[in-house]
């Protein structure tokens, strides 16, 4: 059974302001994003009949606990009409699944959305309690771990196995920042370009990851509207067709992961990428622009390897050769990515927004000339453990 290539399309995207937004709530960012993407698609909120939610979108604490809480909340909030399709997972995988659902007639207009305000992922703002907090028994907070130390463990092992240096990691941040300077909507672009020395000279967070090796941690929201190709062609914007996509998961907790973190046969990211390319019927060489989930510099390197753009251990050289920079053969994270563009809690839909805008030719100074086919990616949950990819195209 083939994937319904070009039978569905992204008809609208929207990105709220990203950064420190002290006057906003997560809800107001989500509503603004949904309204904005629906307006861009030339539709009404009442057209929505599918909801693709991402983590942390719940608003009713009283009801928190069910995986469908967020869908239920928004079904009520959008008028209590019957919503016909609900899904969970990373953004690119949800686009793939909803495409199959729309092609099968399960729904017609599905919206992916996220928004967050006022929360922080890292230690910033944490206080010392008056008694030891009791946490779930396998919580990594017992070891003083959080995202950055875990990615640092991953990075340290990678550096050891493949003779890569902190300066090599830094090259990723340099490219991302350069792209951010060309994106007026990026959080860090106004700060200007950075050098490898700036990255390795920035404050150490968890060895070998410096501050500038780490993603941002800001407020913001976004939404993406997916519908039938036919209906997208009636919209104001050029339809961005879904050629294929896939998701995969293999990990649970961060606390304990089996040895061999870099198996030559790959794991979930390799599987989802291979499936996405096979379903889409395109090759790696066909990709004009790549929206990578690059939450740390190490993540970006591993993404190139596992998604099949270079061999295991060769990603640092791939970046140094300039392939991932605008003008290279695989311009990546052209909005500045999660390192310099925005990381708003769950930013997994931001690469989709950027790739859609690139394929429509709306990216101004950072536009990839004649971009026709783009790749979007999302990963997370115990490093490369839950992941998805989607391949998008314009005529």
């Amino acid at each position, binding site marked *: 059974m083939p994937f319904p290539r070009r039978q569905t399309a992204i008809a609208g995207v929207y990105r709220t302001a990203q950064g420190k937004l002290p006057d906003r709530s997560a809800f107001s960012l989500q509503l603004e994003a949904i309204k904005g993407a629906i307006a861009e698609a030339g539709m009404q909120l009442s057209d929505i009949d599918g909801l693709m939610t991402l983590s942390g979108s719940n608003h009713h604490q009283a009801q928190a606990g069910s995986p469908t809480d967020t869908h239920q909340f928004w079904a009520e909030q959008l008028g209590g009409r019957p919503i016909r399709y609900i899904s969970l997972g990373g953004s690119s995988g949800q686009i793939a699944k909803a495409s199959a659902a729309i092609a099968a007639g399960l729904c017609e207009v599905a919206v992916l959305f996220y928004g967050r305000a006022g929360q922080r992922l*890292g*230690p910033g703002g*944490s*206080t*010392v*309690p*008056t*008694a*030891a*907090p*009791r*946490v*779930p*028994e*396998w*919580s*990594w*907070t*017992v*070891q*003083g*771990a*959080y995202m*950055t*130390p875990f990615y*640092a*463990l*991953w990075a*340290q*092992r990678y550096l*050891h196995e493949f003779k890569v240096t902190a300066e090599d990691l830094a090259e990723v941040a340099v490219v991302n920042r350069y792209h951010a300077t060309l994106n007026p909507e990026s959080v860090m672009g106004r700060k200007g370009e950075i050098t490898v020395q700036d990255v390795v000279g920035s*404050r*150490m*967070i*968890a*060895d*070998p*990851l410096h501050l500038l090796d780490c993603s941002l941690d800001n407020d913001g929201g976004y939404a993406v509207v997916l519908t039938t190709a036919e209906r997208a062609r009636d919209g104001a914007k050029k339809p961005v067709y879904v050629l294929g996509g896939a998701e995969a998961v293999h990990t649970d*907790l*961060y*606390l*304990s*992961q*089996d*040895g*061999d*973190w870099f198996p030559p046969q790959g794991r979930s990211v390799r599987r989802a990428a291979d499936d996405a390319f096979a379903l889409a019927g395109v090759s790696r060489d066909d990709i004009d622009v790549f929206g990578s989930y690059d939450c740390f510099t190490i993540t970006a390197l591993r993404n190139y390897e596992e998604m099949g753009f270079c061999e295991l251990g060769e990603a640092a050289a791939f970046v140094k050769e300039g392939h991932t920079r605008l003008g290279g053969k695989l311009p990546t994270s052209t909005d500045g990515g999660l390192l310099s563009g925005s990381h708003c809690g769950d930013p997994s839909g931001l690469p989709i927004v950027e790739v859609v805008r690139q394929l429509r030719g709306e990216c101004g100074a950072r536009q990839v000339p004649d971009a026709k086919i783009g790749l979007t990616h999302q990963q997370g949950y115990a490093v490369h453990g839950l992941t998805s990819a989607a391949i998008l195209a314009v005529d």
Partner: protein
Amino acid sequence: MYLKPLPTPATHVFWDGLRRREFLVPRCNDCGRYGWIPYPACRKCQSENLEWVAVSGRATIYSYTLVHRGAGAFAADVPYAIVAAALVEDPTACVVLANTTGIAPEDLHIGMEVSIAFEDIPGEDITLWRVTS
């Protein structure tokens, strides 16, 4: 006073073992695989015929990081080490996350031979595991 997060024991056999200075790991009696942390069935062959066995505690550092920015009470400890230590019993299946004790940060390296140590938390009903040289 210990102010860092402490686990809420649910797997009592494991936490009771730490108090006795034993690091217990579920081993599958059907395929022999060690699988820390516990799952209700073996993650390789899905047998429920599991048994908690005490391992030697000997391990090698698979990876490590020195954390310079810590949350809550960890902020006072920076830089502190977090290591991923591969138990010698079955290094492909058992990588244990731990803090260190008695290891100078500059001595930490991948491949370093370490062993599991135990720390009774004063005033609390918890013993935690660490790794030491």
